[in-house]
């Protein structure tokens, strides 16, 4: 038989179908209905992974998402995924997985040698040991430790799977499809409310799938199937199986991951998403997330074969798998006695039931009649290298410690239970949810919350089945009613609840501090995921990390992909005992999303690669591509940086600059932000926004403008044109277009609603081809024969409307290069045609297209600053030498504008502020790096006082030398003074000069 641990009958598996899979290279068989974990157990695979720190062999501990130990690497190559829990991987044909952390193999792991060194690597070991010398840490310790520890391997190839997203709203969101959740969904759904029911499992039923419960006249699982069938008929009800709600956020906002094609593995059809991310906004939330069983802490409690009692039950009843052949139970609650009965019924010998309590309840005792019962005993040790072989018990003394002689019992399965913790991660994540420690239940239960949540069933600490159904039903009805939907019964009456075979066997013993000998604490694991032992917790408390958040970080308790689902509560109890506090006073660490690890792929969805961020292209983009342009990203825009002709960037930029300076060149300025302003008060509004005036601008004229925030710092600049008395056309920097538009709207709506002004963003309506250079007039004249272009008729800072190459155009006689220049704006869909005609016509003058780099060189030669390069939010117009721009209004000498008052603040008005200057390196071939710091004198002891920094630096083609712009303290009065830029490899000497290097009189610009 290929599955030696498979039961012949029972279970929710399809024995008629074989699924082949490989684990650690070996072939195995399983059935539909199996998880990878149940299939591994059916095949007798006990060691599934090696542990994080000590490389101890680890097996499967749980049957759900809380699995702390048995982490696997799922699939290989591009499909590989680390840190997966075999307990929540539905088995599919062809699955490949491997145990994590083991090298060279699971059976023989070199790292396990470290296990023997356990006492030498306690919590805080890294901090203490490797702090000095630092070089040794970087070169030796860190690489070695990273290879030894760590989790699985991250994929190195792009994820080939497809992921989808959905956004939905609902009235009632029911999280968890166990008895309480199903009852809630039925009650809410029958009212007609829009309900979503989500459960991580592929089958609804929760605990009902784990053991035989009677509900009404039948089995619990049957009742669950019936409930699902009824829910499926409800038009407003959405069932989401295999969907884990991973986060709860403010405003009843939930994020969930649905596993869609994942159950088919890499062979899933290409169109099927592997997972789907759900964004859910609910009016009410019913939290029926159940409870997680907690493992007790005792020496060597991590051997393969030591398993949560509920997991043992689940593998037997649901998957028809024997987790072992001879079992011992170590449990502290009556409910777990049922597991002994289930084991016996499956033909598994129960060698002992060990219970630290003096006496179990009568019903529990009757369940295990005839089995060896060790009340008042504790497990004090285990043996078995590759899997459990034996346990030792001792009687528990009055003070809680173990005493008396040890009894050895052979077994290959130890089912453990330390009681149950309500699963309240979601409750505590959002909505300000606070937990409360319930002394009777010895567990944290829901406290106050601001979210619209009802907790029901085991999540609320109600462990009995009858109470789960009743609470679910009541919460479902309440939620629907609060959403405006009536009582749920067909006749308007609440539906009657079915009877259950619930008994009073759900009380939990208080979570006693585990019983540990001095020697035993070092191998008594609290957190199997991170290899945190009871000794580590005690050490943290001794060394002053007594607050739970400190102890967590010192020991790594509850960190990593597991987030302490099984181990945290025992860690809390130990810390509380060590610090002499109550568990309630010790508190919990913060719960943060996600509840289970979420892959980046599903978070990204389809927004990856080209769809990660919108790409904005100008109408002339295809021409630039064909011309071989090298592009740069400016915000979301792709802009040509230069157009190489078999040359490097420096040579291309030099050639492009000289074309513009000596002949004619063409620049794509379409990305410039463009805003049109209409309305009676447009001029008044602009006079308040800009430092310069606009009301006195004549129609048809252009003006350069600068705007500040109200703190006096430069925010944006551009050229404005008055098209009509009540209509202005403004340009902004390419990167700031949206921000400026928002800025206008903000002031118009919130501060000056009385102004009659309307803004319209027209950035994308206009293409802009900027024709630059001494021959620009000739090229334009050839294409716009009716337009008078002479200097007197169409001077600098004017606009004209005319046909250019037969295309209606607005021509602005403005520029950013210092040369004669025409910015020709045409409707965007004609941009390419215009561009091609300009290139064609300009060929006679050897026209060259130029990119943003040449544009930068030429504007810097003219001393034109760039917002965001020369400014950084701490630079005023006065710092830039723009004081003369501030427009005076003769009728209103006190004209106020945004930022004006701030320019007179003591800090902005003080002498010695950094001011814009030019820099000429002594060596004309030197090009200073941008960002270089400047000092006024060399020598002395570092650090030298830094008096400024380089903001822009280029090689000026026409200047024939390197030059720079810089912000220097008191720079305006330092013209002619020397400065130095101490660089890592050299010191550059330079001289301060005025920030205009080219055509100082503006004759070339004026054409």
């Amino acid at each position, binding site marked *: 038989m290929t599955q030696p641990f498979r039961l012949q009958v029972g279970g929710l598996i399809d024995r008629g179908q074989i699924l082949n899979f490989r684990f650690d290279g070996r072939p195995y068989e399983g059935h539909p209905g199996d998880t990878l974990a149940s299939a591994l157990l059916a095949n007798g695979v006990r060691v599934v992974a090696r542990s994080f720190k000590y490389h101890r062999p680890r097996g499967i501990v749980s049957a759900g998402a809380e699995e702390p130990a048995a982490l696997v690497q799922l699939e290989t190559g591009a499909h590989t995924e680390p840190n997966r829990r075999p307990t929540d991987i539905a088995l599919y044909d062809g699955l490949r997985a491997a145990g994590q952390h083991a090298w060279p193999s699971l059976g023989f792991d070199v790292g396990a040698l470290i296990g023997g060194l356990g006492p030498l690597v306690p919590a805080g070991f890294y901090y203490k040991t490797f702090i000095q010398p630092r070089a040794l840490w970087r070169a030796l310790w860190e690489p070695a430790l990273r290879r030894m520890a760590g989790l699985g391997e991250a994929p190195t190839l792009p994820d080939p799977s497809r992921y989808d997203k959905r956004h939905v709203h609902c009235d009632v969101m029911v999280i968890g499809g166990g008895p309480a959740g199903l009852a809630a969904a039925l009650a809410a759904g029958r009212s007609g409310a829009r309900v979503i029911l989500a459960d991580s499992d592929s089958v609804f039923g929760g605990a009902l799938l784990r053991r035989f419960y009677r509900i009404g006249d039948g089995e619990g699982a049957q009742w669950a199937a019936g409930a699902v069938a009824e829910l499926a008929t409800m038009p407003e009800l959405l069932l989401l199986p295999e969907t884990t709600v991973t986060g709860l956020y403010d405003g009843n*906002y939930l994020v969930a991951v649905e596993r869609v094609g994942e159950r088919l593995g890499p062979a899933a059809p290409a169109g099927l998403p592997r997972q789907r991310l759900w964004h859910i906004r609910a009016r009410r939330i019913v939290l029926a997330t159940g409870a997680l069983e907690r493992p007790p802490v005792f020496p060597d409690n991590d051997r393969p074969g030591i398993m949560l009692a509920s997991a043992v039950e689940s593998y037997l009843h649901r998957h028809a798998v024997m987790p072992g052949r001879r079992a011992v139970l170590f449990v502290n609650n009556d409910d777990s006695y049922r597991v002994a009965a289930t084991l016996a019924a499956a033909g598994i010998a129960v060698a002992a039931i060990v219970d630290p309590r003096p006496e179990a309840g009568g019903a529990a005792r009757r369940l295990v009649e005839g089995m060896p019962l060790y009340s008042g005993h504790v497990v004090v040790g285990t043996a078995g290298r590759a899997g459990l072989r034996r346990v030792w018990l001792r009687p528990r003394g009055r003070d809680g410690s173990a005493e008396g002689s040890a009894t050895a019992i052979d077994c290959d399965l130890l089912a453990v239970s330390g009681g149950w913790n309500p699963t309240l991660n979601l409750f505590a994540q959002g909505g300000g949810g606070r937990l409360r420690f319930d002394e009777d239940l010895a567990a944290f239960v829901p406290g106050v919350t601001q979210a619209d949540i009802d907790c029901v069933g085991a999540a609320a600490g109600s462990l009995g089945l009858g109470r789960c159904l009743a609470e679910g039903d009541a919460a479902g009805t309440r939620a629907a009613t609060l959403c405006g939907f009536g009582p749920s019964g067909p006749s308007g009456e609440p539906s009657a609840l079915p009877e259950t075979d619930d008994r009073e066997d759900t009380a939990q013993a208080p979570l006693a501090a585990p019983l540990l000998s001095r020697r035993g604490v070092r191998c008594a694991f609290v957190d199997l995921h991170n290899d945190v032992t009871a000794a580590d917790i005690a050490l943290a408390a001794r060394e002053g990390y007594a607050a739970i958040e400190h102890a967590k970080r010192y020991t790594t308790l509850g960190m990593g992909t597991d987030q302490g689902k099984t181990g945290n509560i025992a860690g809390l109890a130990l810390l509380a005992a060590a610090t002499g506090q109550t568990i309630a006073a010790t508190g919990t660490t913060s719960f943060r999303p996600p509840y289970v690890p979420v892959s980046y792929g599903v978070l990204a969805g389809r927004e990856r690669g080209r769809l990660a961020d919108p790409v904005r292209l100008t109408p002339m983009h295809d021409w630039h591509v064909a011309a071989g342009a090298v592009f740069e990203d400016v915000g979301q825009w792709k802009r040509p940086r230069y157009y190489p002709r078999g040359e490097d960037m420096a040579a291309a930029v030099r050639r492009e600059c000289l074309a513009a300076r000596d002949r004619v060149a063409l620049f794509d300025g379409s990305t410039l932000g463009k805003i049109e302003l209409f309305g009676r008060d447009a001029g008044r509004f602009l006079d308040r926004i800009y430092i310069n005036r606009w009301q006195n601008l004549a129609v048809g004229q252009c003006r350069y403008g600068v705007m500040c925030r109200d703190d006096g710092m430069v925010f944006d600049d551009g050229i404005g044109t008055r098209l009509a008395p009540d209509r202005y056309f403004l340009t902004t920097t390419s990167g700031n277009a949206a921000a400026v538009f*928002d800025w206008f709207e903000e002031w118009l709506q919130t*501060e000056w609603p009385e102004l009659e002004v309307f803004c319209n963003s027209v950035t994308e309506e206009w293409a802009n081809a900027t024709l630059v250079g001494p021959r620009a007039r000739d090229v334009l004249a050839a294409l716009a024969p009716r337009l008078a272009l002479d200097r007197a008729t169409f001077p600098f800072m004017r606009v004209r409307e005319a046909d250019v190459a037969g295309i209606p155009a607005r021509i602005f006689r403005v520029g950013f290069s210092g040369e004669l220049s025409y910015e020709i704006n045409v409707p965007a869909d004609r941009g390419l045609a215009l561009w091609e005609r300009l290139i064609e016509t300009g060929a006679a003058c050897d026209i060259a297209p130029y990119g943003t780099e040449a544009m930068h060189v030429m504007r810097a030669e003219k001393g034109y600053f760039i917002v965001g390069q020369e400014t950084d939010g701490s630079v005023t117009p006065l710092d830039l030498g723009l004081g003369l721009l501030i427009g005076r209004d003769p009728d209103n000498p006190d004209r106020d504008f945004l930022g004006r008052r701030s320019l007179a603040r003591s800090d902005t008005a003080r002498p010695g502020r950094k001011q814009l200057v030019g820099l000429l390196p002594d060596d004309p071939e030197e090009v200073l790096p941008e960002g270089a710091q400047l000092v006024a004198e060399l020598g002395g002891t570092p650090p030298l006082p830094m008096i400024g920094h380089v903001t822009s630096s280029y090689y000026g083609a026409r200047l024939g030398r390197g030059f720079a712009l810089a912000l220097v303290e008191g720079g305006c009065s330092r013209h002619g003074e020397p400065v130095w830029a101490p660089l890592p490899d050299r010191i550059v000497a330079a001289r301060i000069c005025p920030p205009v290097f080219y055509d100082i009189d503006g004759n070339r610009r004026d054409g």
Partner: protein
Amino acid sequence: MLLIPCPWCGPRDEVEFGYGGEAHIARPTDPDALDDSAWAEYLFMRDNPKGLLTERWVHRNGCRRWFNLLRDTVSHRILAAYRIGEPPPARGEFP
């Protein structure tokens, strides 16, 4: 994520909105009348209460309208949304 009731569009996800800081801070009508300290008070100083706060929001990816919210900074509950120019609700109405 907050669900913000835009007074013009109705409830929408927070991602559609931009935050504009504390509301009802009028720009002084005569800035020159203020000394540096009073001007700095207007420019930089904001309440940061634990509890109720009136604040400005803009439905940036929606109707592009600015409006005001009364929000509890502890519970993140939104207690009222009102248009620019409307008076803030009396805080006594809310616990």
